[in-house]
């Protein structure tokens, strides 16, 4: 076991082969360290699965199994059933990309939710099939360049709008579905903890910037995720049993250009008149989402500013780590 850090488990530890600056690695590390080693993690095929278990070297310090691409929710349901049958209470957590969630994974996910399994399904949304070389997915936003939706003489990039998955999930009237992103750790932490407190199916969609596929500087992964939220393009919302229960209010609304110009996948929009029209379209999409969820006037003190503030000693941490030399089993016995 890698025990370099006394303050977090590093469930997903070093040596994995994610790209430098990977938003998904960052998000998964946050989520799994918040949940801890006493859980069973099922990984759908995708970037996270590949880079964390590459060439027979595993970066997982908790029980983890690769399902295949589309069936992570079903495999997790099987694990949960086994635990249920044996009276064991251990969280079962799926980690999938937008590929394994929005499109090919949707069938199994819907079945798992419909049957009410006690499973937390986490989708790390990097808005394309990244692992196979940046092909578009149902999650890819409008006008984005991907290898299967390239801009060209008669194309503006991906024609269709990003699938509103969180609404689809919420339409199951399931206990808890929420969106989050890496830039706001206290918000993500609260949502993971809320999810774990619920018995039944729960779903988290975490926007995870991809320096390679979104074509931005590796150092800007957090900045890009912050702007996705501050422009209104990625609302941070919580839905319970189909109804919006809480949103994170935006302290200010930034124009979408601030977000788009940092990423090469939108570069083609800045070249010509057609592109400018698309930028206006994207702005309209952002405005619509803001209006729909009331992101500028929600009656809450939970804002993009309040969620960002740092303080001496940090804002929230992970589950306590068992002291070195004590086996996990003994530690549990000691309470």
């Amino acid at each position: 076991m890698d025990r370099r850090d006394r303050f977090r488990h590093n469930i997903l530890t070093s040596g994995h082969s994610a790209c430098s600056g990977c938003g998904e690695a960052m998000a998964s590390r946050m989520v799994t360290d918040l949940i801890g080693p006493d859980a069973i993690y099922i990984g759908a095929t995708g970037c996270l699965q590949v880079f964390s278990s590459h060439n027979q070297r595993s970066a997982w310090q908790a029980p983890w199994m690769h399902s295949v691409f589309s069936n992570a929710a079903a495999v997790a349901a099987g694990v949960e059933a086994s635990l249920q049958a044996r009276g064991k209470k251990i969280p079962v957590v799926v980690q999938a990309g937008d590929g394994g969630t929005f499109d090919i994974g949707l069938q199994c996910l819907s079945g798992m939710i419909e049957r009410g399994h006690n499973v937390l399904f986490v989708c790390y949304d990097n808005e394309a099939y990244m692992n196979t070389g940046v092909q578009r997915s149902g999650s890819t936003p409008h006008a984005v360049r991907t290898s299967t939706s390239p801009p060209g003489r008669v194309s503006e990039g991906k024609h269709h709008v990003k699938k509103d998955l969180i609404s689809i999930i919420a339409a199951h009237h399931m206990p808890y579905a929420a969106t989050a992103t890496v830039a706001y750790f206290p918000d993500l932490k609260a949502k993971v903890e809320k999810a774990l407190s619920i018995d039944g199916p729960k779903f988290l969609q975490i926007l995870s910037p991809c320096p390679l596929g979104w074509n931005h500087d590796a150092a800007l992964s957090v900045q890009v995720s912050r702007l996705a939220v501050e422009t209104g393009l990625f609302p941070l919302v919580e839905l319970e049993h189909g109804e919006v229960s809480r949103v994170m209010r935006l302290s200010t609304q930034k124009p979408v250009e601030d977000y788009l110009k940092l990423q090469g996948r939108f570069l083609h929009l800045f070249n010509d008149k057609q592109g400018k029209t698309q930028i206006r379209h994207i702005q309209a999409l952002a405005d619509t989402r803001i209006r729909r969820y009331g992101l500028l006037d929600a009656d809450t003190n939970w804002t993009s500013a309040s969620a960002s503030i740092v303080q001496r000693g940090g804002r929230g941490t992970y589950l306590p780590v068992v002291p070195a030399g004590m086996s996990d089993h003994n530690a549990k016995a000691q309470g």
Partner: protein
Amino acid sequence: MSKLSIDPGSSVTNLTGSWRTQTPVMKNKWPPCGQTCPASEDIQAWLALASESQWQAAWRKLTARNPLPAVMGRVCYHPCESACNRKHLDSAVNIHAMEYFLGEMALANGWQHQKLNDNENNATGGKKIAVVGAGPAGLSCAYQLALRGYAVTIFDAAEEAGGTLWSGIPEYRLPKNILKQEIEAILKLGVTLVLNCTIGDIHGNAPHPHKRISTESLITDYDAIFLGIGALKPRLFQNSQYTDQHVLTGMDFLRRVNQGEELSLPKRVAVIGGGNTAIDVARCLRRLDCDVTVVCAQDPHGAHLAHPGAEIPASELEVTQAQREGVEIIYRTAVSRLVYSGKHLNGVETCRVDKIHDRHGNFNPVLFEGTETFIAANLVIFAIGQEVDWCGLERLIDSGLSKVFIGGDAAGNPRFAATAIGSGFENAMSIIDYLSGQKPYFDTHKKAEVTYKNLNLSYYAQSHRQTENAGEKENSGFVDTISLNESTACKEALRCLSCGVCFYCDNCWHFCPDAAIIKQADNYTIDYDFCKGCGICAQECPCGYIDMHTVLHE
């Protein structure tokens, strides 16, 4: 690992640090507030302690370099605030009000300075130091030496200690009892204070009753001598002596007012000069119900951004407050002659100024003929600069004695109390080096290494600067200051961005995608075996503690 076994190995055998083309380096840096502080206070450090309501610890940290916080919080021109990076977010941290608050709290609670060592092993070798001048430079020097176990005696010609702090700064700006209490705290370290005593060999204009000690006996009796005698010789208009009661020097006026003398003043007074002394004089006069015009050779603040030497030297805050109190300021103007009718002063004739400094850089205004303007005044006070009065001390400075050290205004430093305090500290260290043969350890910091561009302001909430009540005191029309309280002081200290100094916010640790940042009990370390050099830690560090360095491949 056997190829036929089914369990995979661990990824920690894959040292992804080899991927790096840039490397993060964590290093505490010296923020701009500390760099601009003439006393080199570790402002960030004491604000951090204050933000946790550790008041005494904060005071100790502050007084490591400056023993007069209650004084300086009131009178310092706070360059730290001009440099404060917080101004790029909303407004600078109210450092001077914090300093003032801590100073007052120390006095209220009777906190004592603690010696750094008690000279148990006689490390000081029983050496004695004489400090000439009980102004900020001398007090600072004596304090630093006393902290380190040395025997110090301070001599001052005046009746009270404090130097220009006592004689030159009016009560409304610096209450005398505050100054006295902070000096007492220094003396409690075992420093001897001898007042009403001049060091010197010839007769100067010494007040009475008076002791005089020759330079020779000083050299004999003391192992080191620090001269913090200030610059107390006022420059005189056209080098004339002021023989009538209509013309005074600013220093003289202030000294007399501060000593409580009842002056009979006419309604209209002209004050010549643009320094803090001139403004102090003007504000005093307003409180004594006079109509005041300040005639200043320089331009207003902000007129010469590239060349601040051409702007009014008094601090902006003082100038603004003076104007709010009704002081009229005329810029780029100098006095050409005094206008009398008989023995009665009617006013001053002024002219527009062309150049302010001559080609040697000396203050030497050139007046434009034909621009003469009359300003009515029955009293003119010249506050046009001061020089050092070495009279009687030639023996100490001419022969280049190695045991003589000079600091503060006397050493030609910029004329600020804070600079004097800093000078006192530096000289104390030099004295220790001279006496013990060993350079004492102390932090030296040169250029500020963290600008606001190194910060990530997304992580700080905007908040209003907690101000001492800078509004008008009831009915008086004058601007006075009221201290912060514990709650507002804590809030204000929390506004410090901690530029360049890690405050353990956990950002880098949360964000590293590769578990290459390890959290320890009170810091973070980087595991370079795995760091891929993405740069996220440096980008998201709010305070600029982490930088990316390019990796050079051989």
